[in-house]
């Protein structure tokens, strides 16, 4: 009995070694996280608008290529990706919606006034409830939604140059 038990630590270590080896090899990138939402219809969305206008709902996605960007005025990476959203807004190929995540509306307004507003409409999600529906676990996150209302692409973290290229390519594809 004792004999077998003493081999147990080695066995556990062997299993971990296999996992570690797998983790090192191949294309695995721990910061790339696929979304279970890809190619699925967009989850429920019904938020009061930041400027008091019509509510932000899924119906707004219908018929056009849309981008939903999760942002907050307290989030520094949001400021980093902000010029890219401004560029996408300038392209005018997709309508950009904002999801103002766990933020104070006044802070968000001040932030947009200072840095520019790329969003056609902004939903206010003060408690982060919509964020849960959408599987958001960090700000910023960006979803690309096709005219059929299905999510096609997702960026976790700030948009980079590579993401911008990919977004532009996919927007052009989806618009066809």
């Amino acid at each position, binding site marked *: 009995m*004792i*004999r077998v038990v*003493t*081999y147990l*630590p*080695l066995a556990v*270590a062997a299993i*971990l*070694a*296999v*996992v*570690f*080896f*797998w*983790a*090192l*090899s191949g294309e*695995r990138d*721990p*910061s790339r*996280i*696929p979304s*279970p939402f890809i190619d699925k219809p967009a989850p429920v969305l019904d938020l009061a608008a930041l400027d008091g206008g019509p509510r932000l709902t899924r119906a707004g996605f219908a018929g056009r290529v849309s981008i939903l960007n999760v942002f907050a005025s*307290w989030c520094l990476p949001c400021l980093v990706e902000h010029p890219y959203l401004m560029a996408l807004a300038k392209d005018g190929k997709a309508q950009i919606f904002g999801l103002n995540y766990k933020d104070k509306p*006044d*802070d968000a*307004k*001040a932030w*947009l*006034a*200072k840095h520019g507003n790329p969003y056609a409409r902004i939903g206010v999600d003060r408690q982060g409830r919509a964020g849960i529906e959408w599987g958001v*676990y960090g700000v910023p996150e960006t979803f690309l939604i096709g005219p059929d209302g299905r999510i096609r692409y997702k960026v976790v973290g700030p948009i980079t140059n590579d993401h911008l290229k990919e977004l532009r390519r996919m927007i052009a594809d989806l618009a066809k």
Partner: protein
Amino acid sequence: MIVEAGHFALILAFVFASIQIMVPLIGARRNDSVLMDAGRMAAIGQFAFILAAFLSLMHAFIVSDFSVSAVAANSHSAKPLLYKISGVWGNHEGSMVLWVLILALFGGAVAGLGNNLPPTLRARVLSVQGMIGAGFLAFILLTSNPFFRVHPAPADGSGLNPILQDPGLAFHPPFLYLGYVGFSIAFSFAIAALIEGRVDAAWARWVRPWTLAAWCALTLGIALGSWWAYYELGWGGFWFWDPVENASFMPWLAGTALLHSAIVVEKRGALKSWTILLAILTFLLSLMGTFLVRSGVLTSVHAFANDPERGLFILGLLLIATVGGLGLYAIRAPALKTGGLFAPISREGALVLNNLLLGTACATVLIGTLYPLVLDALGGGKVSVGVPYFTLTFVPLMVPLLIALGIGPLLAWKRGDLPGVLSRLRAAAIVTGIACLATILLNDGPAFAVLGVTLAVWLIMGALTELAERVRLFRGPLSASLSRLAHLPRAAIAMTIAHTAMGIVVLGITGSAAWQTERILIMSQGDTTEVAGYALTLEKVARVPGPNYTAERATLRVAAGGRPIATLYPEKRRFTNPPQVTTEAAIRTTLLADLYAVLGDRQEPAAGGQGKMGWAVRIYHNPLVPWIWIGAVIMVLGGLVSLTDRRHRVGAPSRAPVPRRPRTA
């Protein structure tokens, strides 16, 4: 030139390490004292050459020799001297040199100071230590050469990440490595004991001071790191269950278990096989931490510049150490003679419970840290394990541990008298009950605060009762008790100190988790806000130049009950090399609570004149938080007191006359 000499010294150190592997091992086999002593010389030589390499690298950082790639990538000529020096270990290559330096320091210390060790055991310990050293020196020389030159040399370096430019963090890595790497000695002793096939009280007595020293350093290193996170990151928290934090916490848990089980081996000759396993696992966990941090298999805020080749190399080293260590254990451990029997209710039993709970706690942290990786490997998708998991699994394990901690030290060896012990704990129980009631009445936070305070008070009272029992306090004249106290073994006093300190830490964690007040607001000049009875007025925000940054510094006047009591100066520092903004929280501590202020971004009034001009300010009131670090420091003091115990200085009593040591050394 000095740089090339450093590189050459590192190669020579590798040669010495290789000698250190083979020669003493053969010497121990043949019982040849000349060969065994050659191992000691090799260990000291290895240390000397690594020290030379380390100093030459430090020289390159101090004189800002940007032709060295590690210096160019991590230093800058305008950096204060302290951070030029700490920059040596603020990067992957340099920190690995510090790693092997500390490894060699411990090896050299065994060679130089271990005169009371049996020569064959010492030779084998040094040989294992040489294997670890050679492995990591090869790793540095082949994959992470710190002396690599770049041509042409850049005009200036790219600088050290500003959030690392901090006195707390300057000393965090050295202490952490002293702890991590110090456990290598416990590992080497365990392997040597398995080779010799003998584990006895003397073995435990030799292992314990080394483990204790490593444990003290690791405790201090972790405490420094969490203190740094608390005041530098500006989130008001001190522990985030980040994979890298966990990587340092797992060896700490295993090492704490090892400290306790080694006592059972020493006093009662029981738990031998388990203690050997713990000694091996503690160091393997340290190695695994190194692997996780440097290979990039997990995402973390601490991740070094990653490189799969390096990850593969460390994985190879980890594999050799694991297969060697645990394989030898699997083959040899059944042959270890088990010692004294004991009843479940006894000091041994309490220490077994301690080990079970600490071991399980360590396993839950391991599972939480590696679960995302394992699930991903099995094709189960990507998940992240967060704070709620650790709160749900780790904390419940601490509850029985803390309850038992109050009782265990009072139990007798071999067969304890639980009813008797509980009756002696009556006073402690009454005090704990009063504390519990008081917390229930005064508590305006969550219910778990009551549990936390009760457990902490119970633990402290239990520890003090044990000491009072030992010196027979109140059962005779006070002078008699004091003279008993003076004659107590240092280890006994150390235990009381360390256990009391643990209670203080628990109080600190409870207080900060339950009663923290947080206030985030935009303040204009002259605004006043109230947090936990303090009135804070923003007097001004001014631009202040620093040595290699410019800061926006807010002046916050703090008043309590209408009387001014303090001024806080939270800062936002803008560094130029590399360009980055850091927050410097301003903390006013009363030792009972911290008032903690962070200066955020400047807010412009929105278009149309809505909103106001001002600065985002975050203010926290953190009751009892300082106790976490005060407790940690006291705990380390306890460890140091235990290190001065007489039995570590005079060595183990031996039945046979001590063989004369050859004079050649």
